[in-house]
């Protein structure tokens, strides 16, 4: 144990920091693309969470909504393509009629699952955690079963939305071009996500709807006394937000890949919940948290794909790969626990609302 100070002395700390900076810079163009791709579904899930919880309904069924939408979108698009042919794609994003039909079906499916959650938690006032859990378990079981029934027909999906192609001249510009490429080298859902984040942020804090939403999440009784129909508002928010989580699911099965796989959301809905909390129940914050998680993911992938050299390499390559894979989660916990201070949920979050006049 006594030789640890000596070992530390032997590591040229400043040099390693420089090397780390150089490594990140050299690999930024790869890490940045991954960052955006990892962040998109997490962000969409988190936005769904923000909309629900700001109005006072806890929604841990994000995972189930995403999975349902991923399945429905892929399946309906594939069936539509089988029935009507794919047709000629539009010049942008490779949009075809079956893809649009699939997307719409997925959004409707996502909202339908959300409606179930709204009914259980708002009207029946059952424990919202239980309701969300039912959705997660049910979605995993039902989509997994249906997929096992049809998957093996080797159903060719309807394809996928294509990415916007950033001109090579722009992509090759160091740093700036890479970042532009990372942001714009996406399909329609990825691009729309950024718009949704901004719009939702403004709506939530600058519009009448936002004020009412926050009021019913903080103090529903007070909101009701000034004439806000809390039950109706919560219903609307929960159902509408289902479309956001659904977009996240569809992104997986129709934009990032053209295929469904049982359980393909793999916990992204839960990471979205964490992003929502780290982002303090704000759309921009949630997006930031998702980007943080995603950028660490990209960096740790980069470390396994292209090993750094020199002192940095001997330091990093000496650490087991498991650590780098866990790092995004560790960072999220650290940030959640310490750096951002207290993250306070809306006061009435998760509490069923009952009108006083009832009965």
């Amino acid at each position, binding site marked *: 144990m006594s030789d640890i100070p000596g070992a530390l002395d032997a590591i040229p700390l400043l040099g390693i920091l420089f090397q780390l900076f150089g490594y990140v810079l050299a690999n930024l163009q790869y890490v940045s693309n991954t960052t955006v791709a990892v962040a998109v579904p997490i962000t969409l899930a988190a936005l769904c969470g923000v909309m629900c919880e700001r109005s006072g309904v806890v929604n841990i069924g994000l995972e189930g909504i995403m999975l349902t939408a991923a399945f429905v979108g892929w399946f309906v698009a594939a069936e539509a393509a089988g029935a009507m042919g794919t047709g000629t794609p539009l010049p942008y994003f490779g949009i075809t009629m079956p893809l649009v039909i699939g997307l719409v079906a997925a959004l409707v499916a996502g909202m339908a699952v959300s409606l179930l959650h709204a009914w259980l938690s708002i009207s029946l006032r059952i424990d919202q955690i239980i309701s969300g859990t039912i959705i997660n378990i049910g979605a995993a079981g039902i989509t997994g079963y249906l997929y096992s029934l049809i998957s*093996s027909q080797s159903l060719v999906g309807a394809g996928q939305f294509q990415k916007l192609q950033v001109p090579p001249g722009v992509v090759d510009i160091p740093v700036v071009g890479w970042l532009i490429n990372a942001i714009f080298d996406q399909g329609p859902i990825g691009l729309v996500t950024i718009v949704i984040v901004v719009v939702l942020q403004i709506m939530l804090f600058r519009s009448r709807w936002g004020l009412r939403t926050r009021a019913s999440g903080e103090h529903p009784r007070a909101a009701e006394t000034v004439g806000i129909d809390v039950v109706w508002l919560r219903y609307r928010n929960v159902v509408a937000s289902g479309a956001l989580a659904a977009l996240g699911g569809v992104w997986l*099965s129709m934009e990032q890949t053209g295929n469904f796989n049982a359980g393909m959301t793999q916990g992204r809905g839960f990471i979205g919940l964490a992003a929502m909390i780290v982002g303090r129940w704000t759309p921009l914050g949630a997006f930031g948290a998702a980007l943080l998680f995603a950028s660490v993911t*990209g960096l740790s992938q980069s470390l396994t794909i292209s090993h750094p050299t020199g002192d940095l390499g001997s330091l990093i390559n000496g650490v087991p790969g498991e650590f780098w894979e866990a790092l995004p989660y560790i960072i999220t916990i650290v940030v959640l626990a310490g750096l951002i201070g207290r993250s306070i949920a809306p006061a009435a979050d998760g509490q069923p609302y009952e009108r006083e006049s009832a009965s």
Partner: protein
Amino acid sequence: MTGKLRTAFGLLATAVLVAACSSSATPVPSPSLKIGVVTDVGRVDDKNFNQYSYEGAKAAAAALGTTAEYVVPKDASDYTTDIQSFVDKNYNVIVTVGFNLGDATIKAAKANPNIWFIAVDVAPCVDATGAPDSTFTCAGDASKLLPKLIGITFQEDQAGYLAGIVAASVSKSGTIGQLGGINNNPAVVRYLQGYQLGAASYNPSIKVVTDFFSTGDLGKAYGDPGFGKTFSDQFITQTGVDVLFQVAGGTGNGALDAACAANIIGIGVDVDEYLSYPTADKCIVTSAEKHLSSAVNQTITAISKGTAAGGVSKFNAANDGIGISPFHNTAITIPGDVQGKLDAALLQMKAGTLKTCPTTCGTWAP
């Protein structure tokens, strides 16, 4: 967590050593074999494990003048009852398809010592009493405790070797890649090790970049195509590979998608993925294959002749157990010398003179 996960879980292959000294079989001349196949969930015509295993059973049955029946379990909880349904109807050869059915098959074999069980892609791992060993200690000798249970395994490194030859031949950049699910899985690792050696045999200066999707998360490693796509996108751009081999189930499908999106060449695994994963057929040049049909056919035939023995039955080039898929994809030009090199390699594998796996076979040493 379905489908090609079966390969991924070939973990049990370690039991090969245990089974290597299996005792001789009891000769059972059986003119009227009743053959039942319990597939994994899905469909029997899945262009994948279910289909090829059943076809093997059908072919064997036809040659014996009998028929093979099949049942497709609705979900994993039906494995045991579906196997039992064949037992109840006095079937004497029951084929179960894939790793997922391994435990149910071992239990059934223990309960019904007079019935032949063929577990496809499973190296039975049992404890001292002959029950499935979930700790993978494999203390019991399956070939003695369950003398009528045959686990069919494959020598993945030979199939990987052939894929490596093709990969090196179609690479223009001289850098090719391969992605596995997790590096602790001997079956996955053997594929990758064979691929490396095969590529080097075609072009000694080829650079093979290897990585794994995860260090321990099975869901990420084998069941997450979205992640597979994202990871592979980064892998392809960051390493500059122009051919990508993947051994990672559903996550690997994402890797094939990434290969298509990046306009590079992808290589399938286990079955002919040009047929089983048509989403990516435009960039799949070939697949490293396990010849499931042939393996099941041969095993049933051996049972009927009374030459079969319990334990692990290993399939490789010598008994037509592995191979490489036909080059369906006419858009990809294969150099003229490739077929000759593949044939030569296969001949050497059959003769046992070709080293397709390093001394650390099945263990990944970076």
